[in-house]
């Protein structure tokens, strides 16, 4: 990751991202306790529904207001077949800046890469990368080895297909797993490509603390990728063995979200 401050963004000023209608699902705690709001960002193919299933309610029950956005072209947001990673990061920053106070950004899968890009454009209070897919050819190699038939079409502009067994552990009842996979959509072709070839995220503004967590048994993100991602932000990953890639939907969804909230309580973030 480059550490150079980026002041000039001529292309972005000259070509602003088109506005779209975005789906944001929110659950707020009954009692306002002055805690920072959390903004959950789903990965490719997922929508805000993935967090609405378990994590939003649980987060609000612990006193944090919880919001989940569907990136354009996903879930209930407007379709956007030509979207880029930049447009996705724009969606995240727009929703974050619309919250009443500095938000904690939580990104899952490729949503973690979107969050990493958003961090260069919004001084988040903290960031959490859950089973992050930060892109590059190594990610592609791992995906190709594990799921050749789901991954190959993506190279030619098709959708990335993830199987039930990649996303969930065997503990999750089959009916639930099938219900979730049936809801999966797909990311835009260009954004998928940028996952492989796109530029590294610029340095985060406002130096937020970053937590990386995942599962060593994740069949999308290998443990080595988790370590690499955490090292980028100067820490070690928090591991939850026995879980699949979709930690927020898997049978033991409670453990990772509790770990995130505990970390936030201990680490309120500096500045402002």
């Amino acid at each position, binding site marked *: 990751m480059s*550490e*150079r*401050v*980026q*002041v*000039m*963004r*001529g*292309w*972005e*000023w*000259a*070509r*602003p*991202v088109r*506005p779209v209608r975005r789906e944001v699902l929110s659950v707020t705690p009954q009692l306002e306790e002055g805690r920072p709001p959390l903004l959950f960002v789903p990965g490719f193919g997922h929508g805000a529904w993935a967090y609405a299933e378990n994590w939003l309610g649980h987060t609000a029950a612990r006193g944090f207001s919880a919001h989940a956005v569907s990136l354009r072209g996903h879930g209930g947001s407007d379709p956007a077949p030509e979207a880029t990673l930049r447009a996705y990061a*724009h969606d995240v*920053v*727009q929703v974050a*800046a*619309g*919250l*009443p*106070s*500095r938000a904690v950004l939580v990104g899952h899968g490729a949503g973690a890469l979107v969050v990493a890009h958003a961090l260069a*454009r*919004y*001084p988040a209070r903290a960031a959490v990368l859950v089973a992050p897919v930060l892109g590059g050819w190594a990610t592609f190699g791992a995906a190709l080895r594990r799921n050749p038939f789901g991954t190959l079409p993506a190279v030619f502009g098709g959708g990335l297909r993830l199987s039930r067994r990649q996303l969930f552990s065997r503990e999750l009842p089959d009916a639930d797993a099938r219900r979730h996979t049936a809801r999966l959509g797909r990311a835009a072709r260009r954004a998928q490509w940028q996952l492989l070839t796109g530029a590294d995220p610029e340095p985060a*503004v*406002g130096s937020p603390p970053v937590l990386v967590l995942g599962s060593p048994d994740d069949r999308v993100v290998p443990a080595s990728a988790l370590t690499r991602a955490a090292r980028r932000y100067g820490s070690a990953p928090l591991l939850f063995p026995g879980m699949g890639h979709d930690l927020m939907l898997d049978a033991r969804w409670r453990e990772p979200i509790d770990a995130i909230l505990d970390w936030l309580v201990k680490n309120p973030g*500096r*500045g*402002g």
Partner: protein
Amino acid sequence: MPTPTEHGRSDPETTTLARSRDGRPVSDRGDTVCVIGAGASGLTAVKNLAEHGFGVDCYERETGIGGAWNWRHDRSPVYASTHLISSRPFTQFPDFPMPDHWPDYPHHSQLLSYFERYADHFDLRRHVWFGTEVVRVEPASEERWDVTTRSTGGYGPERTSRYAAVMIANGHNWSPKLPRYEGLEQFRGEVMHASSYKDPAQLRGKRVLVVGAGNTGCDIAVEAAQQASRCWHSTRRGYWYAPKYVFGRPADQVNDTLLALRVPLRVRQWLYHRTLRLTVGDLTRFGLPKPDHRVYETHPIANSQLVYYVGHGAIAPVPDVGRFHPHSVELADGRQIDPDVVVFATGYLPRFEFLDAKILGDDDGVGRPRLWLNAFVPDHPTLAVAGLVQPDSGLFPLSHWQAVLFARLLRSRTTAPQRAGAFAARVRSGAGERYAGQVKDSTRHWFEVGHADYLRALERALRELEGQ
């Protein structure tokens, strides 16, 4: 890393008392930084200094934030119809975008609500002492500053606090600049400066002369064209009236496409002239003087409607004012016109009445500081001015980066003193530098910068300071 004092709000009276040079008691605020003004530039200074770990006390003479953009403030120059001149991407703070469903050129009330949200989002109000004006800023020992404040309007006692650094963000669009004309005192009609123009009702049914072809002057001329019974628009020279949209996109976004491609200035000027000739056409046909300069050599005017109303005959372009008579105005070409109302849209001058002019390098006292990057003061490394720039684009991103650079400079004074020293040398050698191509020499262009040139220079300074 300086230790932040707890949330600006702690009572200055409780901290240790020192004495100022002339023996007045001074409360020492430790490593806290003082920001003067809670307008757009002041707010971003507070936000970025706090984000870099500094305690911040901000003094604001009004009771709300937003400075010039808060129309409730008596010094606010905005009028009912004020809209942005630069489109959203150039106007928003780089790390807090405006809602993307807002128009390309938001209204001033939207801008105020944007600043309100910025202040709430980053919890800035707890740093601000409202209704408090700064009376004096004086250098103290060890490059620290004594800041004397009192309640706005002069009520109550003065009190002096000592700060590690001061960032001045008092704005430069509140002190009207009025030109002198022979006979103006004897003129029997109404005379006002654009700063007191608020609403087109002030012009309704009257015969109006608008003096000045800044963006404000053009806006008021357009409103007079719709409301007044007659409108004359007096300009010193011919200008380039750029439309707000070209090729169906905000004109500044089209312009920045060329900047991003690093198209040289001469080529950009040629393209610009060409585009204007094709879209706006030859304005001398309407009786407007031919511009005596190339585009980008004066502050850009973005107004699609002026030429339209000239075409309707609702605006009569006239030359400079020669002198005033009791019942008429004599123009430079000898013609006489008889307006009821004269609006001087002749701009503003910066004022730092709380500071010895010599500190900012304004040795002649004309009101023009000599700074580097329009912000950093030679030989006073802990003093900076935010927002004293007149960019050909939005101002707030420039103020943001000035504040970031100042915060990092203050931090490096403890973490990397040799780099802070190199920076100080740079400030001394570079003071007075310009960041625009050739511009017309006039007070209006004292602080004129090209936004791309300026931000590139600032980016270089940031990277040098960080040792990159």
